[in-house]
């Protein structure tokens, strides 16, 4: 289990959110959109801005924001 941020995850991989490291308002918005601590996120597309699958929907994020989402790999998916 290695801590990294969402931009470092390869496309197609599924990871678990371990911590959010952003301004309180932004954090709250991310959580409400499903990026809670412990939520499972699958990265669909990488690139400068990225698209993830979270909580049953596709959500696009700017890279700046994705760097503030710390994630960990889950066993059997590394």
């Amino acid at each position, binding site marked *: 289990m290695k801590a990294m941020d969402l931009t470092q995850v390869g496309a197609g991989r599924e990871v678990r959110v371990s911590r959010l490291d952003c301004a309180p308002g932004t954090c709250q*918005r991310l*959580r409400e959109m*499903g990026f809670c601590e412990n939520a499972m996120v699958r990265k669909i597309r990488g690139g400068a801005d990225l*698209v993830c*699958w979270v909580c*049953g929907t596709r959500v*696009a994020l700017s890279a700046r924001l994705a760097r503030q989402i710390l994630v960990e790999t889950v066993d059997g998916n590394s």
Partner: protein
Amino acid sequence: MSQDQPRRWIAVVGNPNAGKSTLFNALTGLRQRVGNYPGVTVEKRTGTAYTLHGEAIELVDLPGMYSLSPRSPDEEIARKVLRGESDGIPQPDAILCVVDASNLERNLFLVTQVMELGIPVLVALNMVDVAEARGVRIRPGELSQRMGVKFLPTVATRGKGLVELRAALGQKLSDPGERRWVMPPQLATAVGQIAAAWRDALPAELGAEGRALELLAGGKDGPEGARKLAAAWRERFREQAYDWPAAVVQARYAYLKEMLGQAGVGHGQAHLTWTDRIDALVLNPVAGWGVLAGILTLLFTSIFSIAAYPMEWIDIAFSAAGGWLQGAMPAGLFRDLLVDGVLAGVGGVVIFLPQILILFFFLGLLEDSGYLARAAFLLDRVMHRVGLSGKSFIPLLSSYACAIPGIMATRTVEDPKDRLTTILVAPLMSCSARIPVYTTLIAAAVPAAVMPSWAKAGAMLGLYALGTGTAFVLAWLFRKKMMGGGSPPLILELPPYRRPSLRTVALRMWERAVIFLRRAGTVILALSILLWFLCNFPHTAEDPTERLAQSFAGQIGHALEPVLRPLGFDWRIGIGLVASLAAREVFVSTMSIVYHAGGEEEGLVQAMRSASWPDGSLIYTPLTCLALLVFYVYALQCLSTVAVVRRETGSWKWPAFMMLYMAGLAYAGAWLVQAVGGMLGG
């Protein structure tokens, strides 16, 4: 139900893309009213629906949202309406939550918040067709039982479940019961105390726990005791560095996950669908821009080419009506007023209706199909440089056709500061009404024989670039420097691609057409009459050129001459500027009258080229033409835009600011042209 009993109000809430508008349209049809909440640029949409028993109820469609904790003005408005604190809308008697059945976890998050308001809640479990196709099992009965509010399955696009929904809306809905999610102990103590203080002061009110959470988050309404208690707890949590809002979100999600698991409702697996395959192309850093360029080309070709036909028919119709009036009425002032004032003025604006309809047809298709979110995503990084988000791009682009639909299209921009900035700079994008002014002045500056057509096109392009460049600089100035903060980092849901619903698109076009025509029939009608009056009174001379010179407009032109002189403009140009306040293209027809040039552009260009100052020097030197062009790039010579900005921002403050800053820019720009030109010896 008796006639004089006030109608019941029902608020419709839901996540964006849950199908809320579709359901709202299905329930209310054409019985809708669109307006603005006082003082803010948030659209207020209400409509009348009928229950199965024929009782009329009022629905208010709240902005789509993910959460009730107010952070954006949209959410603040929603909270106010739900609390009954919004002017003109009584506190709702019930709340209809629209949720996407294929994505329950996130959609029900909002429902858990709504249930704490102390108002009866009914949940429309929409998109069950999509959920079933994804293999999600839909169990409304199970969900109703576990959450304590009624769930009804619907497919809004096909009208399925509407009968049951209208039946349920006619019945008395029960209050949501106890909170089901588990509050962390630390927070539960605080909320318990604050809620108790609230209940002591206002025992009749329901939803004290929801109120307590609101107070804890910094809410300001409530009994003094509860407020003080909340402030004390807030301070204590801050000292302990306890992030209670995060804990609440997590607790709600934890409850939902478990509840959905027990109810046997999973959410769809994350597998690649054809939406992802389309996205692979559409969001590709290279191909994506190609797709966007293709779509925009199609959009603009349609706006300029297809719209040309109906525009011509409207023109012919208005001319025919004018001709008929000429013949049918005795000559006189009243006839002139009808023909030259009313018909010409209103006709000059109604002629843009086809462009507006086509634009909204395309925007409707793009939005309803899910593409607009992708375009915003693609453009976000570009727009971010000036502090705006990707969503401002389409409105700005639309403003090349006409600022009015462009400004109306800013409704898709959610961030209110972004929206205001977009509205403020939209008129700087050269609209099609400027084209006749540009061509006339370019021709007056340089004889057609000397100027090859590529140079003309280049000059046009330069004018467009000047307007666009200035718009971006000012957007940066307004958004980043004056309003502060820059737009929030992008978090954007990309809905799955869907076949757009033509009914929704048609409704939207109809709505825009009504708004537009209503304005043409009121504000613009009044302004046209006023302008006609200014140009024709005092009615002393029979000769139109003489009459215009002596008219109020002419007097204003003379009065303006000292101010306009530094720009190289004489009083005749002053008349043109005054007359074209209502619409820029009027400049050309007014100048034709001023110079006695008849209806043809060539005659006018000839007359302008030989016009001179009393000392014999030419008025329309290339430099003055350029100054006048720059003036028209910048000046807000369009009262319809002013009227629409007033409507969209809900106050006179912004249109006034816009008029002033653009006039300042126009004057300074034209002056600079003369000054620099003079220095270079031109």
